[in-house]
């Protein structure tokens, strides 16, 4: 506060100009960051004829939400949503469990060859064999065209293990000691003491993990080439975006009026925009929760393991 008061006293005309420039700069950049999302959104809820002729630029015209309902008829989209939600939930949960368990165990000085194993984990962050050997490995393990390919490799996340380890090291050791004296086993200590105390860091890594899973694209692109049913939502969107042919041909259904109506209503532009929006919305929904954690996460990351 004192700094601000002093600043106030010492202000000169140049300062006002400087302040104005800063506000302008940040205002513009912020609009640049937000406007595309807004533009995409208003184009999915406006009258579709107006959207196709490019009349919806700054505000929605002819508000309706039928595009989102019509998406249920878009071929293959449903399976992609299910696959993506499943991998996000299962993959994140398993990653958090493994990271918490591993992060806790590597704090145990008594473990046989502890530092060797820990180093072996850390090295994998900086060194990898490359894309093709990784792909051949997945092929060798039978993890192509297989849902497990989304789950198993993601379970091991060295960076998250380091974050958890760093956090657990900051918990007073006396808590654990007293429990051990009372006869608690390693598992009990982990469940009853370590887990409840490390909720903040676990929340951080689970949110980052969930966003990472939701955004995953590369593994789907590489490994699922023969099973379009297993494409993630991002991969599906990528396919749609690159489809120059009329996407509305994709809108399938068992015939009847609803399909006919959908065909008339949905142009490929609108489908592309609406699928994009469906892919973005979950991120925007968890975003307020993430905000609480990401500064913490990034600062912990700066502390080396």
């Amino acid at each position, binding site marked *: 506060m004192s700094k601000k008061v002093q600043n106030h006293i010492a202000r000169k005309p140049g300062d006002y100009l400087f302040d104005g420039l800063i506000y302008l700069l940040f205002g513009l950049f912020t609009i640049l960051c937000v406007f595309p999302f807004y533009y995409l959104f208003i184009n999915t809820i406006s009258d579709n004829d107006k959207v196709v002729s490019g009349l919806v630029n700054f505000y929605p015209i002819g508000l309706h939400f039928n595009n989102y309902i019509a998406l249920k008829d878009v071929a293959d989209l449903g399976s992609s949503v299910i696959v993506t939600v499943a991998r996000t939930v299962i993959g994140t949960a398993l990653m958090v469990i493994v990271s918490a*368990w591993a992060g806790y165990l590597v704090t145990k000085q008594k473990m*046989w060859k502890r530092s060797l194993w820990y180093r072996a984990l850390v090295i994998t962050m900086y060194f990898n064999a490359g894309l093709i*050997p990784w792909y051949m*490995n997945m092929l060798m393990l039978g993890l192509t065209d297989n849902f497990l390919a989304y789950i198993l490799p993601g379970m091991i996340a060295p960076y998250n293990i380091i974050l958890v380890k760093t956090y657990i090291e900051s918990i007073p050791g006396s808590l654990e000691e007293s429990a051990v004296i009372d006869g608690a*086993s390693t598992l009990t200590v982990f469940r009853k003491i370590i887990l409840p105390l490390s909720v903040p860091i676990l929340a951080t890594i689970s949110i980052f993990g969930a966003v990472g899973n939701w955004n995953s694209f590369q593994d789907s*692109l590489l490994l699922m080439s023969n099973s379009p049913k297993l494409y993630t939502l991002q991969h599906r969107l990528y396919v749609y975006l690159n489809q120059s042919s009329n996407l509305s041909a994709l809108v399938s259904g068992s015939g009847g009026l609803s399909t006919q109506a959908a065909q008339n209503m949905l142009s490929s532009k609108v489908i592309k*925009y609406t699928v994009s929006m469906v892919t973005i919305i979950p991120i925007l929904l968890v975003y307020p929760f993430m905000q609480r954690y990401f500064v913490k996460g990034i600062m912990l990351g700066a502390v080396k393991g």
Partner: protein
Amino acid sequence: MQANAVLPAGRTVAKEKPNHILRLCRLLVLVTGLMIFFPQVNPGRIMLKINENASLFTTAISYETLTNSVGRPLRMEWILPWHFHMLMLGAAIVLVGVLLCCVGGCMSLGNNRMKRTGLLFPLIGSVAVGGGLVLICHMQALVAGLEKADKLEPIFPTGIWVFAVAAGLIFLTALISLLTLPKEVEERMEMEEKYRLFLMFLPVLLLAFIFCYLPIYGWRFAFFDYKIGDALTAENFVGFKWFTYLFENAATRSDLVRVLRNTLIMSGLGIATSWLPIAFAVLLAEVRSTKFQRLVQTLTTIPNFISWVLVYAIAFAIFSTDGFINSFLRNVCNVAGANTDYLASADGIWVKMLLWGTWKGLGWSAIVYIAGIAGIDQQLYEAAKVDGANRYQCIWHITIPGLVPTYCVMLLMSIAGILSNGMDQYLVFENALNKDVIEVLDLYVYNIGIKQGLIPISTVVGVFKSVIGVTLLFGANGISKAIRGESII
């Protein structure tokens, strides 16, 4: 297993002289346990038609992988599904046997009582392995005797011998160890804490091994003339042919030069603008209204959390033929012929990529510096004010120097990662017109390796990239140690 595990009871084990037979047994179990992931020693590959990439593990659990290259024989009914089901059963029995051996190997780290129980597992396990192998042998003989056997190319896999020998040795060593155990043993099964902790950690290590270390074994493809579906044999071993080919062949050499140029320019532009997040943070700190500060910080971070595909979707919505820019020009500015597809052209693609990268990452990268500014001692500013420093002098002499250490780390890391700009961004923006200028090393590896199926040469490129990357990282770390006395990794 409770608290007394930490009491000296376990010490008797440690004081005993090392038992070499038992160690040999554990080593054998470890090797056998790893062998189940290697296709070369798959006892289940009873005919050449079976996928050469299937390991014992895959054979036992995935019918699809096992049969994905025998679609035609199955359709023609030269071979029937039940043959494969029995084969899978055999492989599964071997797998269970190996797992039992592993359990025993783990338990043999405990006290004598635990060893006595634990060593029964390898005994049962190796017998199970033998049983499974017999079943596989039987199926092999059956398949070899089929009418159309010549079409299926049945072979007697070496894996059967390897596993049989391993199982026999495990049985023998486990039996000897069991018989040489002291007669009188402890009352309870116990294990020293160091081994207990290690065993609890073992699953994590196993995951890391399978998904982070096993891929290194894939470097072997660099030394073979290999296409997907081929086997790696002595005939198609070509030594370092691909390594020299990469530089001697005019086409690949010019490709490599072009791709490296793109990579270095894009990374270079990134490094040249790496001060932007600092400027962002410093200027944001000068904003008086905390509400505005928080708003800017919140909204500018959003793009970091969407994938590159979504960034492309947004680019599409704004810059494509009937995106925002064109509709705005047509309908608001009345420019009749406005239908340029800004995404298609290759003009200024490097700067465009930089701008997209900045749009996505600037707000996020600034957070670490914003936190850094918050951590600077306020007394420094007060003291400077008392001495008559103005606003700009405060920024230049206090804020910036406070952020330099963090900046150095970030800069060194980005120099170490100069060859890895990732492929997602360039993949989504790539098209026929801009391919030559947008293709970076990671994307090139993907394009030639996955799209064109040139596995060996793309592996070679990957090997070079990994080696150079690690060298740069250690170099950067060395510089950091020399200058700042702190390592960055």
